[in-house]
């Protein structure tokens, strides 16, 4: 189906809805008639996380304006949005999510299978680049019945973020981040000894992030937290590599004392502390630089990005993840069509259309927003290189400081997150990490063995 057909379909549907609306007061107010008799579809879209700078918000609003000018029949309201495990379910239940919202790869399919996301198949397949998606990436947005329930908008790999200034201050070469775990431990100790800051910080908050990073370490050592997929998956928390990862954390925490004194870091806190110069190294997504600019005004010269050290084993790999854009199941067909158009414009066009990519980059540059943060390709490497070349003149992130990551990531194997009950499994691992970091007598293998049946139960209960 071509773009033209899609447009006429939505116009026809719009006409029918207008007729209906003129008879009944439409409570949702989703369709209203403008003076010229052209139906206006109203959608709300997730914008930036609450607390973003005024400049970031201004950039987003400019993009909304561009979209509305190009699509006179659509009115967009932006809603501050942040996906948090604790609040998402409440908003979903109450129906207060914006029309277009984002969810991580971990939850997309489950939500789709529970009938809580709108079916986008018709509109998604109409997108000209639909068949060019990286098969592993688009699979995250397709449910068990083969329906497209979300469109992947970003893909990232876990990476090691490090503070170049602290490296120099500790006598380490900032262009030479650690490539083995032994080196990482030694560097962390050196940083904490020489600078007094936390050499290596690990997320330990009780909100699934602790389990997420532990899983990352496990994968980097060659282990897996689950075997099998779907309802027959089995929890394998007590794999030897996980014990190894925890032993390593235990050593850094209690023997080397190189992890600072705070151990309840969440995703935002650790970014904030890093931007404030209090952390030498930490593991998180490869895209955190954007958040650090948008929320904390980070000094760009301190930021360094390196690949996570991988052991020399065939199963060792980098945990991948990503974000999906989904549409509320309560939307009318016209709203779904408009929503997909927005997703296409805001998330996808900058990757596939040179003109749009440049325009997008100009808007971001005008508002001093980061352009060029390394991404893992959601199409393929060639497309990624192409879209990077379009925005090359506007790139304002210190790419050379991220070179260790960008050169290595193409060789490293990217592995998808544990497939069954991902968030719940991460949550079940949280307390294991916390115990190791706060209790000197913690026994990693016993803790993992105790957590395994809990994980198994989470997998079986399907949530």
């Amino acid at each position, binding site marked *: 189906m071509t773009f033209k057909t899609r447009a006429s379909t939505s116009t026809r549907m719009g006409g029918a809805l207008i007729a209906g609306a003129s008879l009944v007061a439409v*409570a949702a107010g989703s369709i209203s008639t403008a003076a010229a008799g052209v139906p206006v579809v109203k959608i709300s879209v997730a914008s930036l*996380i*609450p*607390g*973003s*700078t*005024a400049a970031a918000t201004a950039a987003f609003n400019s993009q909304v304006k561009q979209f509305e000018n190009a699509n006179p029949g659509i009115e967009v309201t932006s*809603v*501050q949005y942040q996906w948090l495990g604790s*609040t998402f379910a*409440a*908003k979903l*239940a*109450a*129906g*207060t999510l914006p029309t277009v919202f984002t969810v991580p790869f971990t939850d997309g399919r489950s939500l789709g299978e529970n009938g809580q996301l709108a079916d986008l198949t018709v509109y998604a397949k109409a997108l000209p680049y639909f068949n060019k998606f990286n098969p592993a990436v688009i699979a995250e947005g397709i449910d068990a019945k083969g329906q497209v329930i979300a469109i992947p908008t970003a893909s990232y790999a876990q990476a090691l973020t490090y503070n170049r200034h602290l490296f120099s201050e500790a006598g380490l070469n900032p262009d030479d981040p650690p490539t083995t775990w032994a080196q990482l431990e030694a560097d962390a100790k050196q940083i904490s000894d020489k600078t007094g800051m936390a050499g290596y910080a690990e997320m330990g908050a009780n909100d699934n992030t602790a389990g997420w990073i532990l899983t990352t370490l496990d994968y980097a050592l060659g282990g897996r937290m689950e075997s099998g997929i779907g309802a027959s998956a089995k929890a394998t928390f007590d794999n030897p590599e996980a014990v190894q990862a925890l032993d390593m954390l235990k050593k850094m925490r209690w023997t080397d004392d190189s992890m600072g004194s705070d151990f309840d870091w*969440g995703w*935002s*806190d650790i970014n*904030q502390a890093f931007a*404030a110069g209090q952390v030498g190294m930490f593991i998180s997504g490869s895209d955190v630089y954007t958040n650090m600019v948008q*929320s*904390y005004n980070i000094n760009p010269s301190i930021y360094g990005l390196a690949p996570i050290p991988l052991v020399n084993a065939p199963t060792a790999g980098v945990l991948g993840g990503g974000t999906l854009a989904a549409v509320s199941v309560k939307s009318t067909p016209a709203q779904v069509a408009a929503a997909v158009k927005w997703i296409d414009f805001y998330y996808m066009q900058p990757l596939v259309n040179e003109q749009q990519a440049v325009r997008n980059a100009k808007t971001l540059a005008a508002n001093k927003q980061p352009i060029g943060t390394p991404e893992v390709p959601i199409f393929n490497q060639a497309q990624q290189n192409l879209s990077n070349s379009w925005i090359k003149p506007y790139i304002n992130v210190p790419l050379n400081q991220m070179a260790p990551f960008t050169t290595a990531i193409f060789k490293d194997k990217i592995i998808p997150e544990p497939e069954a009950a991902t968030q719940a499994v991460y949550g079940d691992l949280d307390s294991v990490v916390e115990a190791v970091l706060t209790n000197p007598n913690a026994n990693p293998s016993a803790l993992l063995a105790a957590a395994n049946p809990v994980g198994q139960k989470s997998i079986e209960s399907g949530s």
Partner: protein
Amino acid sequence: MSALQFRSKRARGPQETPRGIVSRADWNRRSVKYGLGTAHGALLVLLVVCGLGPILWLAKAAITPTQDTLVQPMSVFPHGLAWSNVSDAWTQVDIGLYLWNTIVIALGALIFQIIIASTGAFALSVLRPKWGRLITAALLTTLFVPSVVLLVPLYIEIVHPPLIGGTYVDSYWAIWLPEAASAFNVVLMKRFFDNLPRELFEAARVDGCGPVRLFLSIVLPMSKPILGVVSIFAVLGSWKDFLWPLLVLTDASKQPLSVRLPTIQGQTELGVFLAAMLIACLVPIIGFLLLQRWFLRGTGLSGAIKG
């Protein structure tokens, strides 16, 4: 102890020598005078450090640059002041909006709680309907049900209201009305009304006064003390409320300060965040300083009720 009795006791004044545990003779003994005096002095110091200390620290930190607060939290302005924290809290964090939301919610809570409690207590105490005792008993049972435990069914009720449909998430009605179902307020007011002289009502009746006029022109004006207490607690309780507004108000632009502050902590610079926290405390603290008598009397009353 009713409000009237309580008032007359206080009327004796706190300044005169109390005829309490320590009698006049005791006070004249040196060991008591100096021992107790020292104890009082030590207590005063302790209260200032523990009660006032954290707030003074917050006020100081709110106008101190972030770096100083992080590195030398106990020193006083080593590198000067940072009024920008306060202005940033106002503009960047948009504290003004959340402060306004908090005020609106508190005022609504005040109005609804006064209306519901006073009309109900008036009916039970003065008009005495046939089922009055049953209703009072039903109210008292709710006093024994811990309110926090009703969160889940109340939440489901707000999300999918059974008879009226729609949803009341993100609506202030979902905050005001459940708060108004406070048996404590009703009991407090009923006790007060019970102690009003019945002769007054008889006289009014004889003059041909109907229940509405009785309520508005006689009972309410006489109830200023208890209305004051209920108002203070309604506003204070609403200002301090956290969990219920957290669940019900998912739209950031509708949230009050108590819900908003933890959410933005991860995105806000420390100095600015502390300034925001200070602004959030200012209204209750200033209100308390101005209206101390009401606060303290009210708390005493609530103790009497529980006794």
